[in-house]
């Protein structure tokens, strides 16, 4: 068979349907006897629910049913669970306040669900919901994480005094303090990692159906992990057996983390479908998405780096307050701890690191994983510190990094992770070349002539992907396994359907995974289809997040492929009347070594399904194999980003002149798709640094609740990117892959803010660096 498919720029198999309007997103699913739900939501950030009256709503045209928290309590529906237990510094479990699907007695953020109203059409449901009268006693609210623990701050949950979920720490504080005492230089920064609103372009949708015929449920939902959704919903909330619930996540219009979680609406429509004995569909509008999709980031951090006189890192101390919002979302607890503090070593040999994280509840939308999840926050800490340290010590920022790069692998960091492989000098070298760092001073002169400021900034990031070895995750508090499952079904004529527990919502698995399968089997890519996103088809799955699909999901498929090839060998040996050990498989053909005897993959598949001449005493017919893969370690993509900006001091407008990204993702299956992932990640990272910021007023009203107030990057905000890769194959999975989905969002903010602070000649600059913010910083500098 032709050229290798692994590493090839194959155009995407899924594109035809998306380009012709034939995608099937969840809102496109319309079931017979469909009904429509609208949620009544709290307009207040913090209030006692005194009375809910449904009387007027019941009279509205098309009204079918409405339910409140009382109905849910009577039905004994549980609250939404948190999937990761964090143990605090005193050895106590984190505080886990109830997270009811519909509010019970109190609402805790604007948008909190109060009632579900179901009607014949979506317009009628909306009209009826308007008629639900809710009597609130408004309470004072707290929105700022840094203020949540202050004396007299409004208290959200009885079981969480001082609004504190946990105080958690990693590393040896005494050793770190001792290192700081001996340091020649200490660099200290205090900053906010701004809260972001994910805004996948497809809003969330959930369509629940129930069949009396077999007492079973089907939930169509825009989700990144349908099996996890089913597990959480059945086992922890509804008390249903899993075999009675099917979850389907077909085409999903982007996730970025926000569609990982089990949401109240998903449970509510599923439960209500049985009550009204009709399918119930809820489609979020964008305003609801702003209020109810889990937000990201929101850290307040003080960080210090201790160095010797040569700029060698001696120790790092970090203190972070993480605002988790009003309730614990599904993975909220592990994002600012396990996924954050363990990455604080970055690419460096810092021998001692201590980090303390305080997670607090506030009257805001719950915060959870958003593209990068903890790792962008860690990279921001490390890379802003390192760049600032270089400037303070008058060292070249690339040079200070090189002096501290980890160069020997495997490397055990002081914060629990063991990096298997990397070459940080290689990505730094390549990035410097591609970005033409050497020509920067010339370009700067040109800018100065025009009355503009020019700056250059680096970020040398690392991330932990391929989450995760289940035993390790379990010991750290994960309440789920983190393996992946795959199934390879060879059809009688040799074409193949592969079922994966990974989920694609833009990443292009239908192509990338098909490349892996076709390449490994030596068959044409058109003979391979990838199926995902339906619990009734796929045997099991943990889904897609943390850039895990190819490293974990891909490996599960490879393991299943190995079984297929091995069984095929037995069949071929029988057909060729040869010893199994003499049969080799070579790109689609079983051959007897040293002879011209051979059988094609298709012939062997046919024999497996039409087993007239078949080793029935030794083998079952058929050619279908499953595999589960639990990774041996995380994977560690890393790279260097270089950003160059030009700032207009008159207006404060920042123009990104060049953005260069050189990543090491290990082996690459489809460079076109990988580049696309980097472009998208970079743009979200640039969004965080330049345009996006979730803002609440003091009463907890969301001020940035639409695309008119919350500035998603547009095409004119970003440049063409210069991207390239270097490759150190991952040592512990057969494909040598690491994952590429989040890197851009992880590395971009620090690189951009380093460039801006360089241009402005200042140490601190808050994100996002909007023209107004930049102008203010420049004016303050001049005044000082």
């Amino acid at each position, binding site marked *: 068979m032709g050229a290798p498919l692994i590493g090839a720029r194959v155009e995407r198999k899924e594109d035809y349907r998306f380009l012709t309007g034939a995608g099937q997103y969840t809102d496109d699913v319309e079931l017979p006897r469909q009904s429509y739900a609208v949620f009544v939501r709290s307009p207040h950030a913090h209030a006692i629910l005194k009375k809910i009256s449904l009387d007027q709503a019941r009279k509205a045209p098309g009204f079918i049913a409405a339910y409140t928290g009382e109905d849910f309590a009577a039905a004994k529906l549980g609250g939404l669970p948190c999937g990761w237990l964090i143990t605090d510094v005193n050895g106590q479990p984190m505080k886990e306040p109830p997270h009811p699907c519909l509010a019970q007695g109190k609402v805790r953020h604007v948008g909190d669900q109060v009632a579900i109203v179901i009607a014949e059409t979506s317009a009628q449901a909306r009209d009826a919901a308007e008629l639900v009268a809710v009597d609130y006693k408004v309470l004072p609210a707290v929105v700022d994480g840094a203020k949540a623990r202050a004396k007299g701050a409004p208290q959200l949950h009885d079981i969480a005094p001082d609004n504190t979920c946990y105080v958690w720490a990693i590393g040896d504080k005494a050793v770190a303090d001792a290192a700081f005492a001996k340091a020649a230089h200490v660099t200290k920064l205090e900053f906010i990692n701004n809260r972001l609103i994910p805004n996948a372009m497809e809003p969330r949708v959930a369509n629940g159906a129930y069949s009396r015929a077999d007492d079973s449920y089907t939930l169509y939902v825009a989700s990144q992990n349908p099996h996890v959704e089913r597990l959480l919903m059945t086992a922890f909330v509804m008390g249903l057996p899993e075999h009675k619930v099917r979850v389907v996540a077909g085409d999903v219009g982007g996730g970025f983390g926000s569609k990982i979680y089990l949401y109240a609406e998903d449970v509510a429509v599923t439960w209500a479908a049985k009550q009204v004995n009709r399918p119930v569909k809820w489609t979020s509008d964008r305003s609801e998405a702003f209020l109810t999709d889990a937000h990201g980031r929101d850290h307040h951090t003080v960080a210090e780096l201790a160095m010797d006189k040569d700029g060698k890192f001696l120790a790092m101390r970090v203190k972070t307050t993480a605002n988790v919002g009003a309730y614990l979302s599904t993975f909220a607890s592990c994002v600012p701890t396990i996924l954050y503090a363990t990455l604080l070593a970055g690419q460096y040999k810092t021998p001692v690191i201590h980090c303390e994280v305080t997670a607090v509840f506030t009257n805001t939308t719950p915060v959870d994983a958003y593209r990068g999840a903890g790792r962008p926050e860690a990279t921001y800490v490390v890379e802003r510190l390192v760049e600032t340290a270089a400037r303070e010590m008058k060292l070249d920022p690339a040079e200070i990094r090189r002096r501290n790069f980890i160069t020997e692998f495997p490397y055990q960091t002081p914060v629990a992770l063991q990096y298997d492989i990397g070459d940080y000098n290689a990505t730094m070298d390549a990035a410097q070349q591609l970005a033409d760092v050497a020509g920067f001073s010339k370009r700067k002169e040109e800018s100065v002539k025009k009355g503009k400021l020019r700056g250059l900034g680096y970020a040398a990031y690392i991330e932990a992907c391929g989450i995760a070895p289940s035993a390790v995750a379990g010991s750290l508090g994960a309440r789920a396994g983190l393996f992946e499952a795959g199934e390879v079904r060879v059809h009688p004529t040799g074409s193949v359907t592969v079922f994966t527990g990974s989920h694609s919502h833009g990443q292009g698995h239908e192509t990338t995974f098909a490349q892996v399968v076709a390449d490994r089997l030596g068959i044409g890519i058109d003979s391979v289809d990838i199926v995902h996103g339906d619990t009734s088809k796929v045997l099991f799955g943990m889904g897609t997040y943390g850039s895990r699909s190819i490293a974990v999901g891909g490996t599960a498929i490879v393991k299943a492929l190995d079984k297929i090839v091995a069984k095929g060998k037995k069949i071929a040996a029988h057909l060729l009347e040869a010893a199994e050990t003499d049969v080799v498989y070579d790109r689609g053909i079983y051959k007897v070594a040293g002879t011209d005897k051979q059988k094609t993959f298709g012939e062997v598949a046919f024999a497996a399904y039409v087993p007239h001449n078949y080793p029935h005493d030794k083998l079952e017919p058929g050619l279908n194999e499953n595999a589960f893969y639990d990774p041996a370690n995380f994977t560690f993509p890393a790279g260097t980003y270089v950003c160059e900006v030009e700032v207009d001091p008159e207006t404060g407008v920042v123009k990104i002149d060049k953005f260069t990204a050189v990543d090491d993702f290990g082996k690459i299956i489809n460079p076109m798709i990988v*580049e696309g992932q980097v472009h998208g990640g970079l743009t979200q990272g640039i969004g965080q640094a330049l345009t996006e910021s979730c803002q609440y007023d003091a009463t907890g009203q969301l001020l940035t609740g639409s*695309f008119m107030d919350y500035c998603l990057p547009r*095409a004119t905000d970003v440049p063409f990117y210069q991207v390239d890769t270097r490759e150190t194959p991952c040592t512990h999975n057969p494909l040598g892959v690491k994952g590429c989905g989040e890197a851009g969002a992880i590395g971009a903010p620090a690189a951009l803010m380093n460039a801006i602070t360089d241009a402005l000649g200042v140490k601190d600059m808050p994100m996002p660096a909007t023209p107004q913010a930049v102008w203010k910083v420049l004016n303050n500098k001049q005044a000082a």
Partner: protein
Amino acid sequence: MAVKVSLKVNGKSVVAEVEERTLLVTVIREHLRLTGTHVGCDTAQCGACTVSMNGRAVKSCSMLAMQAEGTEVMTIEGVAHADGTLHPMQAAFKEHHGLQCGFCTPGMVINAIDFAKHHPDPSEQEIREALEGNLCRCTGYHNIVKAIGAGARAMAASK
């Protein structure tokens, strides 16, 4: 009050009975079940709902169905050739990986086709400015901009 709206969609005459407040996008998605046209926002910002009306790209979330009376609308389902071959702009999006999750894509393609008619050889800046009303959260626009440039030139060449 129900009203009757008659229009042509993808070359076919259709009559829909709707409430006065019904939006054009609702008729397209719910009455005609042409679900390739998407709804990504409620403030006319994202462009996922863009359709072509009398040859011009419009946001179907920002029009009442009644305003479409007597017009000719083309949705993404009507863009490819009758035999299923992709329109040059669609083909350019595929070749240049100008889409990831595909949710913004129908609006992007329809808008790009309208733009390309007036810009047979557009510059990067012209393309970026033309995307003012179309948001994409996946691609970072890089490959969309490339695709539109290539698609515009292909359209011009095939004239």
